Each structure stands twice: as C-alpha cells, then as structure tokens.
C-alpha cells in the first residue's frame, strides 16, 4: 500500500468530479507543456524563454520594445481579433457534436458566407449603420442555409454529413475561386478586392488610453452567442431535443422527437454560427479572400471545441488558449528562434492529453476508492465514494 501513496495523493489532487472539468484540462495542458519543453531543450533552446515570448506575442505580457503608439494592449486586441471567429467556429462544431453530428464543413460555410457578404455589402457604398447589421444577417442566413442543406441531405438521402460537408467544402472553394478570379480580383495582391471599411466588423486605428489599436465588433456578439448556445442547449425544449437526439437517436425517436427535423435544425444552427465566424473572419481581421484556399480556423475549431469539452462556455476558455498559442507563435519564432510549428505541436499535445481525460477520470475514481476497505462497492457508487473522500 505504501508504494501507491504518491499516486493516491496525485489522484486526490485531481479532485472529485465536481472540479474535474477544470483539473483534468489543467493537467493535460501541464503535461503537454512539459513534453514540449523537453523538445525545445533537445533542440538547444530555453523553453521558459520560448513560452514567455509566446505570451508576449499574444499581448498577455509586455515585449521589450514597441513601435510608436503601440503597446501590449495592441497585441492583445490583435489576439482577440483572431479569437472572435475562432469562438464562433468552435460553437458551430459544438452544437453539431452535441446533436450527434460532425460538422467538418465549417471552413466551407465560413468561406461561402464571407464571400457573399463581401460581394453583396463589402463592395457597395452603404453607410456602416446599414452595412454592418446586413453583413451579420447575411452571415447567419447563408451559413444556416449551407448547414441545413447538409442536414437535409442526411435526412432525405442518408448521405453521411462528413462526406457531404467534405464534398461541399471543395465545391464552395472552387466555385468561389472561379468568381474571385474572373470578377473580383485585385491584380496586385492576387486576392479578392478589399471590402469597404464601412462594412467591416471592426473599428480600426482607434486610440484607447493613448494606445493605437482596433476593436473587433463581433467580440461581444461571440460572447453573447456562447452564453446563448449554452442557454439553448441546457434550458430549452429545442436544446433537449438536440441533445437527446445526439445521445441516442433511436430512443429520441421513440420518445416522440422528430429526429429528422432536429437534424436539420442542428445543422442549421451550426451553419449559422459558422457563417458568423465567416463574416467576422473575412470582414474582420482579414479584409480579402485568397482564391482557392480554406482558412485553417475551420479545422482548428474542431480541436478547440473538443478541448472546450464541447461545452459552449468551455469553448471561450479553449478559444482563448489556442488563439494565444497561434498568434504568439510568430513573435516566438522571430525572437527565440524556435520554429512556428511548435505552436501547433503544443496544440496537438494538449489535445492528445485531454483526449485521455475520460480514462484519467476513471483512473482517479479507482485510485481514490481503493482507500476504502470494501473494494466491491467501487463500481456501484463511484460518485458517492469520491464525494465522501472529499469530506473526509
């Protein structure tokens, strides 16, 4: 028994079930940082230096020097710029996953809504009071339509949503590339022409406390959306229907839920969120579209949603973490000389460890319940046992 002491201590450190939603991700992040430190040490660099420059690049701590009028706050807002579409995209994946669907087409839905909004509003001279709400509306409608199309294809024709979304990703990508190249190309940048500033979901070059920066208008909306989706899933009838279908479609049908309709609603909501991600991305931090390319935000959002435990509010934390890593990595590679790829390696490692979270939970349960003399009861009431442990 004495040999198991440190392990048990460690298990108790991870806490009971009530706190595991925070202790287990924290442990995963810690493990991955340790693993990455070893790699950075192996290539002969200082890991602490690398991590601090990563944070500085994302604006959490100050860099050694700044260009005129800029400060750590500027970098921080830059990071929030990338954070906004990431949170929307992660929410899109979350809603679908909660409903038992896998929306791998977020990138395509983003591109489609971003493109249509750019062409319809971004190239017009509408005043910003009209243009900005219109951009948001287009994002929601176009995204929802694209998402619902996948749901409909699955309901009507039994086409797996993974297949249809991959196919539609390619179709959107090529068709939009065709239109950009033939009509909306900027001959110098070889991208689509810049959208008008009045349509952009971002206030640029404002001074806040004497520091030049910009403010992503979608940020507030994204946070509201996260809370709204949480409310929808946890507190409403539609939310119950979605999650019930996600947990077990067959029993949901027996319970009288119209699963086909639920499927289309789920993909519609997911698509609308992806559309919002698209307009806050293509009319937010970037102003033009590169023809024939899908943004990596669409695929990274899958990882972000999973890291956030597919919980709408957890997504806020995980989006913040991942965008910190990605937007800080350029500064890290330029100052410390650690390659930029390290950032995505950290993301991968964090995910790797958090994928084992379920197992870890089980292990903690076993390790803590072993302290009790009666081993047989462990499988019967693991919840009460770990609860008693905490009080003891």
């Amino acid at each position, binding site marked *: 028994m004495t040999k198991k002491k440190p392990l048990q201590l460690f298990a108790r450190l991870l806490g009971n079930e009530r706190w595991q939603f925070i202790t287990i991700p924290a442990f995963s992040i810690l493990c991955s940082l340790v693993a990455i430190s070893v790699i950075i040490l192996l290539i002969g660099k200082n890991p602490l230096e690398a991590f601090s420059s990563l944070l500085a690049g994302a604006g959490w701590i100050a860099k050694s020097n700044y260009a005129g009028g800029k400060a750590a706050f500027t970098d921080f807002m830059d990071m929030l710029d990338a954070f906004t579409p990431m949170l929307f995209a992660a929410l899109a994946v979350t809603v679908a996953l909660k409903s038992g669907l896998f929306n791998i087409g977020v990138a395509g839905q983003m591109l489609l809504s971003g493109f249509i909004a750019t062409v319809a509003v971004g190239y017009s001279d509408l005043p910003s009071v009209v243009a900005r709400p219109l951009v948001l509306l287009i994002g929601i409608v176009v995204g929802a339509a694209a998402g619902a199309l996948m749901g409909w*294809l699955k309901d009507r024709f039994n*086409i797996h949503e993974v297949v249809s979304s991959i196919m539609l990703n390619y179709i959107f990508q090529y068709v939009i590339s065709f239109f950009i190249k033939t009509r909306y190309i900027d001959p110098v940048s070889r991208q689509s022409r810049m959208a008008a500033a009045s349509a952009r979901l971002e206030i640029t070059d404002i001074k806040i406390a004497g520091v030049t920066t910009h403010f992503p208008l979608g940020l507030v909306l994204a946070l509201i959306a996260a809370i709204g989706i949480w409310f929808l899933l946890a507190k409403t009838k539609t939310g119950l229907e979605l999650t019930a279908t996600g947990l077990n479609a067959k029993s949901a049908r027996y319970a009288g839920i119209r699963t086909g309709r639920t499927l289309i609603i789920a993909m519609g909501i997911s698509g609308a969120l992806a559309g919002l991600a698209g307009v806050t991305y293509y009319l937010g931090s970037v102003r033009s579209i590169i023809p024939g390319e899908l943004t990596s935000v669409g695929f990274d959002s899958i990882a972000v949603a999973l890291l956030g435990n597919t919980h709408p509010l957890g997504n806020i934390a995980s989006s913040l973490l991942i965008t910190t890593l990605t937007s800080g990595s350029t500064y890290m590679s330029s100052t410390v000389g650690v390659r930029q790829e390290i950032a995505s390696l950290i993301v991968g490692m964090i995910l790797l460890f958090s994928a084992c979270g379920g197992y870890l939970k089980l292990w903690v349960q076993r390790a803590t319940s072993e302290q009790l003399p009666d081993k047989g009861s462990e499988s019967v009431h693991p919840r009460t046992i770990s609860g008693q442990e905490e009080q003891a």
Partner: protein
Amino acid sequence: MNTIIIDGLSFALPLLIIAIGGIYSERSGITNLALEGLLGFGAFSGGLFVAATAGVFAPTSQVPLYLSFLVAAGGGALFSILHAVLCIKFRADQVISGVVVNIVSIALTGFFTSTINAAVFGQASNKFMLSTSPRLTIPLISKIPLLGAVFTNFYPFEVIILVLVALCWYLLYRTRYGLHLRAAGDNPQALDAAGIDVARVRFKAVLMSGALSGVGGMCFAYSISTNFSPAIYFGSGYLAIAALIFGNWKIMPTFAACLIFGFARSAAYQLVLALNADASVADLAMITPYVITLLLLAFFAKTNRSPRALGELYDKSKR
C-alpha cells in the same frame, strides 16, 4: 482519352489503398478519421528514409524507391498505434482521437522535416526530395485501343497496390481473422463470447489501416510532387473516407467509387486542356468529381449501413 485513363488510375489507386485502410479499421468498429494524418506520417517516414540513404545506393538504383514503400507502411503503422492506444486502451472518443492524430501528424512531420533538414542535411527546406518514379509500359498489350491505356505509362506502385488490394480482399473476406474483424465491428459481444480478444482484433485492424494509408501517402508523394512536403495533406484522407462510405464499407464498391472519382477528376482536367480554356475556368471544372459523388450518393446512399458497433467503445458488460 488515354491520358484520362492513365492519370485517373494513378490518382484512384492510392486513394483506394487508403480507403481500404479505412475499411479495415471501421469494419473492426474503430472510426478512423485519422487517415489523413496516417498517410502523411507514412509519406514522411518514406521521404526521410530516401533522404537519409541518399549516399548508400547508386544514384540510378530503384532499390530505395521500393524500400521507401515498405518504410512508409511501417511509419504509418507505427503512428497508427497512437490512434489505437487512444481508442482502445485510453477509451478516448474515436472521432476526437482521429482529429487529434491528424493535428499531431501535421505538426510533427512539419516540425521534424524542417528541423532534420536544418540539423542533418544543413539546408533550410521543409521538403525531402525523392527520385522520379519510373513509369512502365507493357509492350504488346498497350497497343490495344482504349484498354491498352491501362497498361501504358503506369507507375510501378500501381501494380503494388493492385496486389495489396487482392491480398486485403482475401484477408478480409476469406480468412478467419477477417471474419473476426468483421464480427468485432458488427457484434463484438458475440466475438467475445466465442473466446476472441476484441481489443486485440481491433488493434491489429488499426495497425493495418496505418500501414495501408502509409503506402497510399507514399504513392501520392511520388506521383503528385516527387517530394515529401506538408503539401501532402491536401485532403486525400478525407476523400478516402468519403469513398469508403460511398462504397458502403465494402472493398469492391469502394474500388468503383475511387475509379469514378479518379476518372472524373482527370476527365475534368483534360476537358479544360482540350477547350484551351482560361485557368479560372479550370476551377469550375474541378468541382466535377465532387458534384458527381454527391449526385451518385443521393441515388445510392439509401441502403448504406455502417458497421453496427462502429465508434462504440467495447464494453463487456453491455448487452
């Protein structure tokens, strides 16, 4: 017309071998979204092998070419252990695990390729150069109109793939292990009751999918770019998943799906060339394979049925 067949086959066959890898894993009950990452890691291992042994073999030797496929299979299998361990031992969600494996593979291979190039070969590059694969033509048969194109200008790996496909088909449908594998995906409880270790069967199946994907990745590395670079991740793993779902998780229908896909793709290319059209029109033509796939699925997907226990953790106590 000949070019359509030649190019179509050289795209369809690597896609097929990756899809068969997917079939092995999914028929055993393990969802495998990791194909993209596995094929990339396989190609990375093969590329690294070619780069590392550049001085060992004579410059004109074909040995590294063939050995690289073997190494790629090994690399893919090695990396698939990650997916297998996560799904089987650590009880991770299989979709999550697949996505994670892809992300880790892209990050890891990109990082190591740059680092190894800088540290060992002293050049700043994110590629491993490969030798150009030879292309073979069988003398007499290739003269047959239309059908002869199949025997003209083909890559040696296409033969390797066809042999592998035949072996995989036999293994899956005609051997005891294949029966166990299919049972593990449809009714693991029955398999367990028969005294077979479900976890072991599934583990082997995932390893198999890693090895086959690795070979497929290496083929793409030779046929598309003659190097290993992060450009290998162009979505062929996901396409292979689409093909195997299209093929209803069976080898022969998947073969047909891949052929349709490959030919539609090369026909679209040739059409653009023949019309002498602008490069931007090529973008429109490129959607052909994807539109055809969706349309065909709309007609034929009704009867599709995934393996019953696909994506489920095997739990002995479950009824």
